[in-house]
């Protein structure tokens, strides 16, 4: 499934669970959606850098499995944005369900 429009929401949601590095975020999206949602791993990074520049997430360095990795965590602004985007998404899916669910 193509997820490009919803990638920021997915990233923010994954990081709300725990800070992660890029590889961890990509795998969490893939596994968390039972393989339905997948992003080309490379294209995740411009989005991560963009969210960091917007102040929604922040980068920090951490040792993961004995190696130094650039990890990301949600900021307060990111939590507010996640809540806003989640409300938007629920409103949207409810509207679609009202129509699709009503078709027999």
């Amino acid at each position: 499934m193509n997820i490009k429009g919803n990638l920021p929401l997915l990233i923010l949601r994954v990081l709300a669970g725990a800070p992660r590095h890029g590889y961890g975020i990509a795998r969490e999206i893939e596994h968390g959606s039972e393989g339905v949602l997948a992003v080309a791993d490379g294209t995740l990074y411009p989005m991560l850098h963009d969210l960091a520049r917007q102040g929604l997430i922040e980068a920090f360095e951490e040792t993961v499995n004995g190696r130094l990795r650039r990890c990301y965590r949600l900021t307060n602004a990111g939590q507010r944005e996640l809540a806003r985007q989640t409300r938007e998404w629920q409103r949207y899916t409810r509207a679609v369900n009202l129509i699709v669910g009503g078709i027999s």
Partner: protein
Amino acid sequence: MTGHSHHDNLNHWLDRAADGLPSQQAAAVRAELAAHVEDAVDDLVRQGVPQAEAQQRALAALGDPQPVAHGFNDIYRGRRHYLAAMLASVLLLIESLMFHQVYKALDVVDYSTASRLLYIADHAVFVLLLVYVVIVCRWLLLWRFNVQTGNTPIRLIVGGYGLYLVGNALLELLVDSWDPVPTLSNTSDPVEWVGLLVMDGGMLVGSAGTVLFGICAFQARSGLLKATAVLAIVASGTTSIAIALLLLNIEAYLFHGLSILAGLLLWPTVFLLFLRMAYTRHYLPARTA
């Protein structure tokens, strides 16, 4: 695939993904993506995939490096230029709306040397701003919308408007007075004739370039951007036709007036709309599963 060739392939991929970035950002991006591949290979090997196959699969999972480079260039190079180009568009609009009032206020609407130099400087600034905005729009189309415009429209625009400036300078510096809506047939002075030909010919080429640019922009997957591209095509197309009529010695004053309106008001408006909506939209390619 051998370990050595994996290293080469990874480096090649990273070169393309970091292409165009300032060195500091390029180094950070390369390190982060290389670490990603390292983690992916380790993960696959832990799952029992042979090392060589794991390396191959990890690299393939990164996807096409070009949209990655576009995304990073958009973030690290584009943003300040998008803002600057929006400011340039506002200046173009103000210049279009206000310059004649400024002339009147300064009382320099005559054929004095000061007035002529002011006109030349005004035209030069207008063209420089226009070219800058077009170049930024080109980057934006490529980095944000993945639309290739190629070099031809830019060459036509830069070359055409460069000629326009040369022709305008010839007329202002070497001709005593010239018809504000001239055609080639109503001038007998050879210098004025050449000046008009170069100026109008240049504008014709430049307008043709902007029509071509608008056609390229129309490929973007955005309804609003398509509408703006159509507006740009109509505006510069009107100018092209008006200039062609003038070069053919047809005095179509209504059309000429329309082209002036299009050139002065529509173009800055189009650019402003273009940059404004593109600045607020994100289109990052993703793999479909």
